[in-house]
């Protein structure tokens, strides 16, 4: 629908403003029908336009106004009533004969919204007689916004080109040059635009009777198509299912998350126990070699025995005694230190021979006989006692090369600062 170019009035009420706008639309078939009647006449041609006027109100709120209303008066031309000849309802002076007018319009008088005139090779301007007639029609028909549609057919001198021009006038207060833009839906390049369904109602009686007769097969009692209701029900059901599935997914995701956390936790325990058991095994071996040379009953596959870890159960202090004649690998219950960061406080093993620093403990303890500290040492690679380098190189080397792969993740997450034997806590390099 074409929007308007003419604003009838605008008022500022203080709080807001309202604008009255007028637009006009004519269906393609009505327009072509008028053109057909006109072009086939050998003289000027005239008739009446039938339709209705709708009013739409648009309320818009913006920062500049508290609120503004826009009234859109839409003139819709549905049909036309051609006059058979000129001067059929008025005389030479332009005085309208109401009787003749009623004979032409019959019961369609109430549908009149304007009238039209077709004249060839003339200006697009209301003529003297048209103004006189329009004024009277406005009064007789009681339509203040009566419109006048003027068709002009312009031909070139050699009749090679013909142009049909049309202008819709909406005279107001003796001003006969005010125009309204007239839109014709789908008259244009429909490949670029969407094909529009005209809002002009179908006034055909035959159409109405057929629809009434067969309508119950397609429409329910409310006038809504049945298929639409069915589709809507399917849509609703699908929506419900989707909602339910969403909930299930949510729950399963949460369960999965918990399980994942447990798995990670247990993996860490496994890794720690592995490491500890490996250390224990190694120490036992070394101790056995030093103290009892003939006592070479070292447990075999210590590595493999160390891998057996009890996933549950209270933490058990590892036994200092090496198993004798043991065929089954020792089972170590590993216990993660209650507070991993407590390893931060463990004394950092020092390289052998490093001055000013206590010698690194060779066993599981740190020299005072306690053994728990060794278990609590973080696998930062700092317990490598075979390196004779100085402390910094030792720390770096151990930290970078000898850390167990299973505990790599823990290392990367944040290597805690270790406590120097002198009581200071130092952050490991690279953290």
């Amino acid at each position, binding site marked *: 629908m074409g929007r308007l170019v003419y604003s009838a009035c605008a008022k500022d009420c203080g709080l807001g403003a309202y604008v009255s706008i007028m637009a006009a639309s004519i269906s393609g078939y009505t327009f072509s029908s008028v053109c057909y009647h006109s*072009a086939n006449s*050998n*003289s*000027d041609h005239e008739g009446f336009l039938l339709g209705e006027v709708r009013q739409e109100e648009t309320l818009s709120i913006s920062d500049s106004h508290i609120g503004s209303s826009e009234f859109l008066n839409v003139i819709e031309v549905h049909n036309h009533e051609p006059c058979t*000849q*000129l*001067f059929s309802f008025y*005389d*030479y*002076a*332009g*005085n309208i004969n109401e009787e003749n007018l009623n004979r032409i319009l019959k019961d369609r008088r109430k549908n009149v919204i304007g009238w039209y005139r077709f*004249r*060839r*090779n*003339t*200006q697009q*301007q209301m*003529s*003297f*007689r*048209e*103004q*006189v007639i329009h004024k009277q029609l406005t009064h007789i028909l009681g339509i203040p916004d009566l419109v006048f549609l003027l068709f002009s057919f312009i*031909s070139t001198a050699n*009749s090679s080109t*013909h142009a049909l021009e049309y202008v819709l006038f909406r005279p107001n207060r*003796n001003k*006969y*040059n005010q125009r309204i833009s007239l839109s014709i839906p789908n008259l244009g390049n429909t490949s670029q635009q969407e094909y529009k369904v005209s809002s002009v109602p179908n006034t055909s009686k035959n159409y109405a009777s057929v629809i009434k007769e067969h309508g119950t097969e397609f429409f329910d009692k409310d006038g809504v198509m049945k298929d639409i209701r069915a589709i809507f029900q399917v849509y609703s059901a699908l929506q419900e299912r989707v909602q339910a599935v969403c909930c299930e997914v949510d729950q399963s995701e949460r369960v999965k998350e918990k399980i994942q956390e447990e798995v990670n936790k247990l993996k860490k325990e496994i890794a720690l126990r592995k490491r500890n058991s490996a250390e224990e095994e190694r120490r036992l071996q070394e101790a056995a070699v030093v103290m009892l040379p003939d006592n070479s009953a070292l447990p075999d596959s210590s590595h493999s025995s160390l891998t057996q870890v009890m996933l549950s159960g209270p933490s058990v202090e590892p036994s200092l005694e090496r198993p004798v004649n043991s065929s089954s690998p020792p089972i170590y219950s590993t216990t993660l230190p209650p507070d991993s960061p407590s390893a931060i406080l463990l004394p950092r093993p020092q390289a052998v021979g490093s001055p000013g620093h206590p010698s690194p403990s060779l066993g599981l303890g740190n020299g005072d006989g306690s053994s728990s500290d060794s278990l609590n040492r973080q696998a930062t690679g700092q317990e490598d006692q075979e390196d004779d380098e100085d402390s910094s190189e030792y720390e770096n080397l151990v930290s970078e090369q000898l850390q167990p792969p299973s505990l790599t993740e823990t290392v990367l997450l944040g290597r805690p600062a270790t406590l120097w034997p002198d009581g200071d806590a130092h952050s490991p390099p690279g953290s």
Partner: protein
Amino acid sequence: MKEEDLHQSKDPASLQLWMTGLMRPEMSCTSCQDNVLLRPLHGRVWKMNSLSPEVALSRISPELRPLLCSVVRNGRVGLDSSSCLRITDLKSGCTSLVPGPCCDRFKLHIPYAGETLKWDIIFNAKDPELPPDFIFGEDADFQPEPSELPHLASWDAGKPECLLQLVKELLQQYHQYQCQRLRDSSRLLFEYDSLLEDPNYGRSMEIYAGLKNSWTGEFSARFLLKLPVDFSNIPIYLLKDTALDPGEDVALLSVSFEDAEATQVFPKLYLSPSIEHALGGSSALHIPAFPSGGCLIDYVPQVCQLLTNKVQYVIQGYHKRREYIAAFLSHFGMGVVEYDAVGFTKLTLLLMWKDFCFLVHVDLPLYFPRDQPTLTFQSIYHFTSSGQLYSQVQKSYPYSPRWDGNEMAKRAKAYFKSFIPQFQEGAFANGKL
């Protein structure tokens, strides 16, 4: 243009058209296709891009032609009746399949208050009995009252003058419409009202109001007044001398107000060709400038009086000349060789003094007796070296404009006697037999 310039056309129709002055210059003769130079109508040359009346009429639908004939040939409306109505832009309201001539709509050019109104007139060739419709061009606000157009309400296509009469009625309403527009300026409205009260000017006034000054954009207006000067006593000979079809004798005063406060006023006097010639040409009459702070009701009578005085002077001059010639005829009797018996502007005498015969040519000027007649003495015996008769012109001799004809004749006779010896000597000395 002389008669012999006219091509001897064998076509009586084209000859008749020439006689009525309606054929356009440089138009081909219909019978032999020769170019003929013809007299333009009313001294106005047709523009090359406009249709002559006859060409326009030939394109009009035959049923409508009588109406248009009346407009084109007899259509003089308004004060400037020397300008005819003109039609252009002929178009047809029929389909292109209808064979011509079938034009039934055109533009009518109407001179009004120094402007040219261009009104569209729309007929229907298929319904020639129906009255026309009008589009008033740029005057879209002009809405005449149909009840005051009797020739529209009782339109009769059988009467050829019906359209012309309808146009005149519309023009009357148009005049009222323009006068109404003067209300935009109280100053100009005063000018109009004051002129309206004077019966000499109120009935012969055209106003074109609402003009916008192209520079300032201000409201402006033009008054065109027909001056109530009586030209009927101008001797017929003065009018006949023109090579143009005289038309009606009229003097129009155009006063343009370029602003609403009348600070820029430009008057102009328009005379019909015959009057202009009778008064001695366009340079003979100069009107005074519009006085600052003045008004039309004072200025127009002033111009009118000036023109009237001029006309009276010319008329008196004619009578005075006639009296002069009559007196000379009386005094010189058989000595009069010839004289202008229509305009009384020339007189030739053949006189003899002591067996010496000579001619005296008397030329009376337009503003005689204010201006002295010229006497030309001519010997009948002697020639100059160029082969002309020896002559001497005398412009200063005893003369008074207050003398009557008799006195002038007597004084002239006396002067002849005193001057002839001197002339004779000169003729013998300078001329040759």
